[in-house]
């Protein structure tokens, strides 16, 4: 089976869930069923097939299948965590729309068509910026997100068109080649909110709930990054053009992003901003991959992208679990969170190990390979050490977590499941009561499940080819 059924089901389920958004419970159920169907359809994809679509081609690859399986699983997990922790009512539907766009983006053979779909997918998410009771402020953040998406899309469209034609009679190489390459790299950097394009991305963390943030800043831009990597592999790498200055610019953006975003994550006072900047910091490695103009960069870059998607989504679910259980997202107020929630503590350790990694772990090795390919020693060693900067914000959160709690723990506010007897209130009320009593536990379990998925992905279970 090709990815087409996946795209169609995800798109239709998203449209239906949005059409009935005035009935939130029904819309949520439809979206969750759609996400479950997407997981199944992603597993059913058979790599190596090509569909012809009236002038366009949709290829099914092994990497596309792995990407869609993981993206569907984390979207489903984040949707459940979001329903438990509180999120926008449209978040699951938007996840489906993004999955449809991602499935199509990665599968399209022609990069000129793929960047169009990647841009469309980026626009779906602006609906998540609308804040009840603060519509103008949310819309302001939303239009800035749309601005980043469209400007990035415009750059990518122009770059893909420029190189995607017969270039045997060039009048002005390699300057225009460099500009096209730089335009594509800038487009990817903008979509991820890499420094210096990060201001709008930081504001996103103010309005988008934790469980929806990875949909906006991880999954949707990652599809464009995959297209850009493929485009560079096929269109740029084989040409004997010196892109030294352009490469240096991209490397500079990547390094500044990796280091400064990690520092920003360390100093933030809110978990949402820690998460936002952690995402930006890890995305810096993807931007760095764009600067490696060698055929060997593709595999580690794709491996890193998968680890990035699952790892950051697990971190988002963990943040949602903390907020649901402790009713706060302020880091200073999280004293003793490790003692209060063993499940979230275990998940956190696994997420940190998956995110930072160690030699032998596929994600760590992929990152090291990209750094080694992008830079010569001793700079590569320095940068490799810099990529370990996330240890700082993980350590800060953990140290606060093991500190003595600043308030007495309430009896019965534990993190195990709490089932109420059915009594005579009927099944529906019983289910609603138990759901309300187990929001914290549900979010913690989802975070733990995504943490396990993150470490498996980082270990290479879904290694890209």
């Amino acid at each position, binding site marked *: 089976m090709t990815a087409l059924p996946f795209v169609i089901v995800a798109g239709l389920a998203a449209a239906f869930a949005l059409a009935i958004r005035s009935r*939130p419970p029904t819309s949520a159920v439809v979206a969750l069923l759609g996400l479950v169907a997407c997981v199944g359809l992603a597993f059913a994809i058979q790599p190596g097939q090509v569909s012809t*679509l*009236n*002038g*366009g081609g949709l290829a099914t690859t092994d990497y596309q299948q792995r990407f869609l399986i993981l993206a569907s699983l984390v979207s489903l997990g984040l949707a459940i965590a*979001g329903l438990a*922790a*509180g*999120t*926008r009512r449209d978040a699951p539907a938007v996840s489906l729309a993004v999955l449809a766009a991602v499935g199509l983006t990665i599968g399209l053979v*022609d990069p*000129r*068509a793929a960047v*169009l*779909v990647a*841009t*469309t997918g980026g*626009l779906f998410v*602006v*609906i998540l910026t609308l*804040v*009840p009771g*603060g*519509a*103008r*402020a*949310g*819309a*302001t953040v*939303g*239009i800035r997100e*749309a601005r980043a998406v*469209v*400007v990035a899309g*415009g750059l990518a469209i*122009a770059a*893909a*068109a*420029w190189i*995607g*034609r*017969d*270039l045997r*009679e*060039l*009048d*002005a190489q390699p300057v*225009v080649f460099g500009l096209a390459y730089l335009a594509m790299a800038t487009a990817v950097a903008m979509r991820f909110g890499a420094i210096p394009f990060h201001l709008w991305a930081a504001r996103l963390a*103010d*309005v988008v*709930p934790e469980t929806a943030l990875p949909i906006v800043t991880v999954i949707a831009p990652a599809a464009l990054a995959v297209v850009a990597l493929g485009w560079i592999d096929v269109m740029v790498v084989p040409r004997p053009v010196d892109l030294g200055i352009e490469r240096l610019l991209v490397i500079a953006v990547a390094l500044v992003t990796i280091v400064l975003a990690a520092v920003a994550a360390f100093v933030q006072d*809110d978990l*949402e901003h820690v998460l936002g900047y952690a995402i930006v910091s890890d995305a810096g490695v993807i931007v760095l991959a764009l600067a490696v103009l060698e055929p060997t960069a593709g595999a580690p870059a794709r491996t890193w992208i998968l680890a990035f998607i699952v790892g950051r989504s697990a971190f988002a679910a963990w943040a949602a679990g903390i907020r*649901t259980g402790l*009713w*706060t*997202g*302020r880091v200073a*107020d999280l004293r003793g969170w490790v003692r209060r929630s063993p499940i979230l503590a275990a998940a956190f350790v696994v997420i940190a190990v998956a995110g930072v990694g160690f030699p032998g772990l596929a994600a760590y090795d992929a990152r090291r390979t990209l750094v080694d390919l992008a830079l010569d020693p001793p700079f590569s060693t320095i940068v490799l050490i810099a990529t370990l900067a996330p240890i700082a914000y993980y350590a800060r959160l953990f140290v606060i977590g093991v500190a003595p709690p600043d308030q007495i723990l309430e009896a019965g506010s534990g993190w195990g499941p709490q089932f109420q007897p059915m009594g005579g209130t009927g099944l529906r009320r019983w289910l609603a009561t138990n759901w309300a009593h187990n*929001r914290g536990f549900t979010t913690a379990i989802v975070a733990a499940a995504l943490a396990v998925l993150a470490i498996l992905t980082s270990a290479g279970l879904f290694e890209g080819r």
Partner: protein
Amino acid sequence: MNPALAGVALAVVIGAVVAASAHRARTAILGLIVTFVGAAAVADPPAEALGLAARLVGALLAGYLLWIATRGHNVRTAGSRVGWPTEAFVAAAAAVVGYGSHGLGAPAAGPALASAVGFALAAVAVLPVVTGRDILRVGLGLALLLSGALLVRTGIGGTPDAFEEVLTAILIATLGGAVAVLASAAQSDGPGGFEMSEATPHRPSHAGEAPPARAR
């Protein structure tokens, strides 16, 4: 030069100038619709019927969604502060640059007019996109920028196939819908029309908040 193509190109640029400079929201949207519809026709050879039809539907849908978002009596947007003559001169200058640099360093597969109009639209879009403080105006600028990029793509890469035109139509409709949703949300949030907010949204994530009871 094909006179019919030149006429369409001129209409597209005039529509863009109106979209970027009009103070009445619906006048600006009408200009944008003209730009969207005309831009699909600035290609040589013309796009396939299916592609053209898709672009027409996408353009009208985007325009209709924006039209709904600007419901009300005499709804206004910020418009151009420098006036339409300046916008027109900017567009004309950029069109000359686009025409002269057609192909951007290599033989092009599309008409020079597409590059000229693409550059004109991108130039007119710069002010609203960069300096706009009005959600609808920024959205109109983004639509013009996107149309400009698509026209440059047609100019250097040739006429897109039907499938790419369908994807383009979906992108245009999605952009129209996204801007409409955001503009509508801003307008419904008290006085101020489509003005952007100066304040950062409050996030209820600090100690003492009530536990989340239901989806927001």
